[in-house]
């Protein structure tokens, strides 16, 4: 393991500052400003908006796009698959951590300092998700961002490894398992149990359930890329 080589791979992503940093923030800030104007115009009752969800969706897409953008290029430029994987993980860690810090700071400002920016707009500070202190909030945001990135990254890695057909078959399997699970839930009345179980947990407690899924996605995408070709 050599840090230099991992950083070389990370830098390939870092050169795309636009898609890694600027674009998601332009979307979030843009959405925020629009909501701010609307909140200012309406102005009588508090507005809770899900606009910040855009950044999670964006991470999902970024995860998908990243492999297409850089994988073939990287192995074409004598970079090992392993170094590419670790380099990408480094970049994801930095991006998600900085985004989590910013978002939780904004949540703190919105919730505790300005209380809805004076117009009762709650964009960054949402009930349930943004409970707990600023560190707890940062962690929740961080793990969600990482999860969404690697969900997209895994999907894309299947495409890279097995092509169109691989992805189609994976979709069919997922769809089948999903419907089977839903049907079973309905038949045995698991839904209510499931929801009452989940609702007694806080967002923080639920993130611990997310960690193994993140690990599974990491391992799975690594396994796919190990044998992926140009």
């Amino acid at each position, binding site marked *: 393991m050599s840090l230099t080589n991992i950083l070389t791979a990370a*830098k390939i992503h870092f*050169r795309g500052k636009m898609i890694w940093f600027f674009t998601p923030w332009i979307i979030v800030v843009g959405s925020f400003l629009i909501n701010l104007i609307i909140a200012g115009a309406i102005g009588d009752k508090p507005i809770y908006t899900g606009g910040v969800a855009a950044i999670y969706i964006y991470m999902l897409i970024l995860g998908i796009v990243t492999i297409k953008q850089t994988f073939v290029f990287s192995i074409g*430029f004598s970079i*090992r698959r392993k170094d590419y994987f670790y380099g990408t993980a480094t970049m994801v860690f930095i991006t998600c951590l900085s985004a989590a810090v910013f978002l939780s700071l904004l949540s703190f400002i919105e919730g505790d300092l300005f209380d809805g920016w004076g117009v009762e707009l709650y964009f960054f500070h949402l009930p349930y998700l943004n409970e707990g202190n600023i560190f707890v909030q940062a962690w929740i945001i961080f793990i969600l961002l990482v999860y969404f990135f690697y969900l997209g990254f895994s999907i894309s890695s299947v495409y890279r490894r097995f092509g169109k057909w691989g992805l189609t078959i994976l979709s069919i399997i997922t769809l089948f398992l999903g419907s089977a699970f839903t049907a079973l839930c309905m038949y045995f009345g698991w839904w209510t149990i499931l929801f009452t179980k989940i609702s007694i947990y806080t967002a923080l407690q639920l993130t611990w359930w997310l960690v193994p899924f993140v690990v599974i996605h990491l391992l799975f995408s690594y396994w796919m890329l190990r*044998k992926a*070709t140009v």
Partner: protein
Amino acid sequence: MSNILEVKNVTKAYKDVTAVNEISFSIEENKIYGFLGRNGAGKTTIMNMITAQLFPTEGEIKVFGEEPYENRGILQKVCFIKESQAYPEYFRVMDVLATAASIYPNWDEDYAQQLVTSFQLPQKRNMKKLSRGMLSSVGIVVGLASRAPLTIFDEPYLGLDAVARSIFYDQLLKDYSNNPRTVILSTHLIDEVSQLLEHILVMDNGRLVMKGDLETLRGQVYTIVGDSQKVEKYIKEKEVLHQEKLGSILSATIYDTGVSKDHLKLDGLGLEYVPVSLQQAVIYLTNRSRKQGGVM
């Protein structure tokens, strides 16, 4: 003479096509090789396997004595400039150079800058906005400045004009003389590079149809023109690749693997010796291998 590359019985088969069919060859250190053959002959597939970007269905590849797959030490000794190289959408020329600089241990930044100037490359321009020729030039700059012990150029001069091609040939020879390394030039435009080469490998339909020393080959393939009876007599015990008749004149192209040097004493026989260009020789020998079932 040490072999830095060994390809043993390598096959790459896809569902519907066998791109590379039981190929074996080796490559010696510090020589310039020509990897020749038509588009789709399987050249790029082989080179992708050498750099572990594709995996052989069968067979073994050793680069600098080791398996290239996930072998950083080996991969960084090989610089493969692909005609179809993909770049991230956001990459500018300078991003490509900076990335290459951090990957290849022997990278010479001054030399890279000098080449950028020679090829008049706009450093800040996005790779997507480069012309085909400029795209090729970026590849050439990376390939030369990386000074990788094994440098592979796959169709390096697509879209390049005569001036730029000329710069490439001159720089390649100059830098090769100063910093000897192994170079593989893969191309279907044979005659233009033939003088630069020491050895050639010729592929056709996924098979290797010829390999050897180029200068030897030049002496082995030639055409004899003259009175048909005299030509017939001359070619009696020789392998004829091609013949054409015009009146009583017969022209026969011969593959003379012996060391007879018969062609040096032709004037006395009233026969004319006509050299054959490498491009023609390759075409004849490719056809010959097809007739023989293609196995070398």
